[in-house]
């Protein structure tokens, strides 16, 4: 055990951050949870709007609208994460050995991230217009112009239950570049010796990727997964910019939270909603944290 005077300076340096996080994050989380357990009645007729306690949670989780929102979130997250990972990895693979004008490709792929979600939403709202045939605009119109008219779709407003997948398109457009950057840096950190050794052993390029490179990239993949996944869960401004508020088709817990809080005057339900989201996010994040703790303990010895 180290002597106190040894680690104390370090602790003191981090203390301000600890206090700030404690006050501005954990105190707010605590308040949020306590609000979510309130029992509320309407002012005039004393009708119960929130029964109080855990029943607030069961009421929310049991409602059709919330379940629909959760399903949308699942579809959105899966497609969003898969899309960014696939494109990010693909672009990194295409660029990692070095190409002419790599800087240009890299910058262009990163460009969408510079545009705020709200601003991008304005363009994507039009791109994802559901009109088909002679009403087609946006992507549908473009598809018709290149002869791919049969791929026209209602996008996120198509009758399918999985329509929310289309809402992942703008998000993929914006964030694949960042995932690419992660993987690209990772590729460049693996020494060429390992590739050479595998090639000497008779491995094809594909096998080099599969057996030498990809396994070493798994920590990066995990970070990207976590970062993109949590962004998907918190996303509401992009959806609002594209679908407006009160859209049934595009509803996810994060948008419902805004409605509950600022339109329905129901901070209790909004707080329960937020806590459920926080728990869901924790489920995704806790494995990552346990994994990194484990591997780091090992390297520290």
């Amino acid at each position, binding site marked *: 055990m180290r002597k106190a005077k040894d680690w104390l300076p370090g602790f003191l340096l981090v203390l301000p951050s600890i206090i700030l*996080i404690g006050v501005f994050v954990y105190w707010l989380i605590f308040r949020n949870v306590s609000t979510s357990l309130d029992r509320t009645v309407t002012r005039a007729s004393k009708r119960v709007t929130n029964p109080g306690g855990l029943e607030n949670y069961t009421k929310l989780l049991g409602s059709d609208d919330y379940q629909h929102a959760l399903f949308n979130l699942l579809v959105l997250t899966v497609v969003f994460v898969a899309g960014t990972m696939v494109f990010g990895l693909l672009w990194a693979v295409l660029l990692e050995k070095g190409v002419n004008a790599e800087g240009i490709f890299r910058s262009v792929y990163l460009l969408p991230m510079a545009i705020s979600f709200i601003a991008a939403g304005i363009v994507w709202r039009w791109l994802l217009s559901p009109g088909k045939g002679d009403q087609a605009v946006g992507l549908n119109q473009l598809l018709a112009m290149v002869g791919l008219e049969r791929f026209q779709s209602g996008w996120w407003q198509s009758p399918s239950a999985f329509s929310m997948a289309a809402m992942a398109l703008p998000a993929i*457009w914006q964030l694949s570049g960042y995932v690419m950057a992660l993987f690209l840096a990772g590729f460049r950190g693996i020494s060429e010796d390992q590739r050479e050794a595998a090639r000497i052993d008779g491995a094809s390029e594909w096998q080099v990727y599969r057996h030498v490179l990809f396994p070493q990239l798994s920590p990066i993949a995990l970070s990207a997964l976590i970062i993109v996944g949590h962004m998907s869960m918190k996303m509401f401004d992009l959806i609002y910019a594209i679908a407006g508020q009160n859209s049934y088709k595009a509803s996810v817990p994060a948008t419902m939270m805004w409605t509950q809080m600022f339109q329905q005057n129901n901070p209790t339900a909004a707080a329960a909603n937020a806590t459920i989201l926080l728990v869901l996010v924790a489920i995704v994040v806790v494995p990552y944290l346990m994994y990194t703790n484990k591997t780091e303990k090992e390297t520290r010895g």
Partner: protein
Amino acid sequence: MTATTNEVVPAGAAMGGEPIPSRVSTGKAPGTEGTAVGRTVRYALLVLFLVLILLPLYVLIVTSLKRSADVTASQAWSLPTSLSFDGWKSAWDSLSPPLFRSLILATSVAVLSAMLGSVNGFVFSKWRFPGATTVFTLFLFGMFIPYQAVMIPLQGMLLAVQSTPGFSWFDGIVKLIAVHLIFGIPICSLIFRNYYATALPTEILEAAKVDGAGLLRTFRSVVLPISMPAFVVTMIWQFTSAWNDFLFALFLTNRNNGPVTYALNELAGGQNPDYPSIMAGVLLASLPTLLVYIVLGRYFIGGLMSGSVK
């Protein structure tokens, strides 16, 4: 030219901030790896994706150069029939006052966050204290709080600070800087922590300790000089985050002391939207961040690597 090497330049260590080479050297000229067919396919794919990525940007640019009366949904793919810069003019008029405030906001947030993150990162990774792992885990978990649920109490807390005697200056951009700084602590600490875990050999720290250096002196003379890549990565992330934020700006400031996202929203939110100005405004508001990316893009690749490998 020079003899080929199979050496990989280690991430950041003793480099004093140069970007890592953009590819490992294998003795061949760039772009000549692999077969001719393979190369063609690769370039074709790269260009295809380039075009796809640029599609929405094309619409933004083209619409911004049209006259307001010429903008209809069905004609949006077409080039302007008559070029007009009215959109750009009105966007500039609306956006230029707060642009400067946004610059101050994003730059301060970027620099301050990086400084705070580097100190935290160093302590969490190398210097450590009992319970450091638990505290760090709690920091990361705190990253995931959905902000819209806590905006009202957050505003209340910040107003309480503002109304304590002597703190009346805690408003507008200053308030936003504080908020982005606070909520950026987890990710900035994460980036630096993982970077130091890779790039800072414990032997050098031991050597400094043997020389009698305390925490601050070690930090100043040993750690900071090799931290450039992590600084750049953190600054880029926080710059983007502060520049594009609207949620905090909406609740904590108003149009007279707020950042450019306020003005952009005003442009976009009227009852009769003027699309050329909106598109021009979006482009204008994205330009500074774009510039930051392009200029620092090479550092971005180098720095991120050390934040995440392991």
